[in-house]
């Protein structure tokens, strides 16, 4: 009898295990999801940060898009050229050159340095704030500082400091998600080799800008005169740098009376 006590459970469990195993095997074959073998390879090559910089919801979505031929292989700014080359190798196409960029917030006025139209107490989110009379700041193009960009940044590169967003150049990979997330569209992707930027986006005339903010660009054109290569031009009261011509000489930065032409990600002194 002793042996039977051991044998019966073994036999019964063998039957149970076998039946379930077979069922699952059949189910796995019947429900097999037809996947393109190249997709896992490309997913392997992609950084996997799911940051959305390429315009797709994540790396696997981007890989699927490439496999279907809907997307180019060089949209992954974070991965840069090495990733693009590997993707091209998998797909057997030619990979274009990718210029690495860094995001910069084109506004340098903290909440205390700008005049406010009203006190906003709503949801802590820039998009909702802009719905209420284009945000609390008098300046239409000022940074709202509620962190919608910081929220989407997959690399934790954006910090909020007294109502102003600041991008840490070392952490920023230039994926561009914040560029799309900012309701005020005041984030600009600057090539890594350039380190000067006009950190203001106000197109109001001098008098109104002075009223709205202590740091706005008043369109005085001093920088335009100072620049030997003519890289910086003022169009409707706002200076902007053409990064193909700019030689990083910094003449405009020293000359600017409002001190808003600064190095990219001007170092935050503690």
């Amino acid at each position, binding site marked *: 009898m002793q042996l039977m*006590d051991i044998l019966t459970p*073994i036999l019964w469990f063998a039957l*149970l*295990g*076998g039946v379930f195993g077979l069922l*699952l*095997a059949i189910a*796995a*074959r019947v429900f097999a999801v037809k996947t393109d073998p190249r997709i896992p390879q490309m997913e392997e090559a992609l950084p996997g940060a799911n940051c959305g910089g390429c315009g797709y919801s994540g790396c696997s979505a981007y890989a699927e898009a490439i496999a279907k031929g809907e997307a180019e292989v060089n949209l992954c700014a974070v991965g840069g050229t090495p990733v693009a080359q590997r993707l091209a190798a998998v797909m057997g196409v030619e990979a274009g050159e990718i210029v690495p960029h860094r995001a910069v917030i084109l506004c340098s006025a903290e909440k205390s340095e700008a005049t406010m139209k009203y006190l906003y107490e709503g949801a802590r989110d820039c998009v909702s704030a802009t719905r209420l009379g284009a945000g609390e700041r008098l300046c239409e193009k000022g940074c709202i500082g509620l962190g919608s960009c910081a929220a989407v940044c997959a690399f934790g590169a954006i910090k909020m400091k007294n109502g102003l967003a600041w991008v840490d150049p070392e952490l920023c990979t230039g994926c561009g998600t914040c560029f799309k997330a900012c309701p005020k569209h005041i984030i600009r992707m600057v090539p890594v080799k350039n380190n000067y930027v006009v950190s203001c986006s106000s197109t109001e005339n001098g008098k109104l800008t002075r009223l709205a903010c202590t740091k706005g660009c008043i369109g005085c054109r001093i920088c335009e005169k100072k620049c030997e290569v003519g890289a910086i031009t003022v169009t409707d009261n706002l200076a902007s740098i053409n990064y193909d011509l700019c030689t990083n000489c910094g003449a405009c930065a020293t000359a600017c009376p409002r001190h808003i032409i600064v190095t990219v990600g001007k170092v935050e002194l503690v």
Partner: protein
Amino acid sequence: MKMKYYLKVTLSLLLICMAVAGLLAAVNALTVDIIAANAQKEREKAVGEIFSDMTSMQDAEGEWLNGVNTVYAVYQNDVWIGYAVDLDSRGYGGEINMIVGIGTDGTVCGVRVISHSETPGLGSRATLSDYLDNFIGVGERLTVKEDVDAISGATISSKAVVDGINLALSLGLGGVEAHE
């Protein structure tokens, strides 16, 4: 290729289940009688705590109400001093296995809980001796609230203990000498 795939998947699960079932069957064969012995020793210890001067106890066969596992007749050097009813009562977390000692006069002379799965710290307080001891001397059916107050927060467990005692009392064992 298909056949090999089916075989591989089915066989792997089958083998694992067989191995684990074999292990458990072996462990169970090894331990089932030891566990039974332990349980029996524990039961005797509990009855011994209720009838402090007990020398021997003997299973009094008989058809009992459901919920009652066994009824032991308790002797002190062959003088019958009462019964110990081993019963299960439905608690909050599951079965509560308890022993209710019935004296010669048919009143409760002690209660012990052998095993329970009430919520630790809450329901389990209803199984501790300081709660159980205030049932000593009880003769007829009890109801929670009038005769005995339930432990706050553990009403279901306290009620389960009381139901167990009522079940033991309802067997009408008082005064009836155990037939040889």
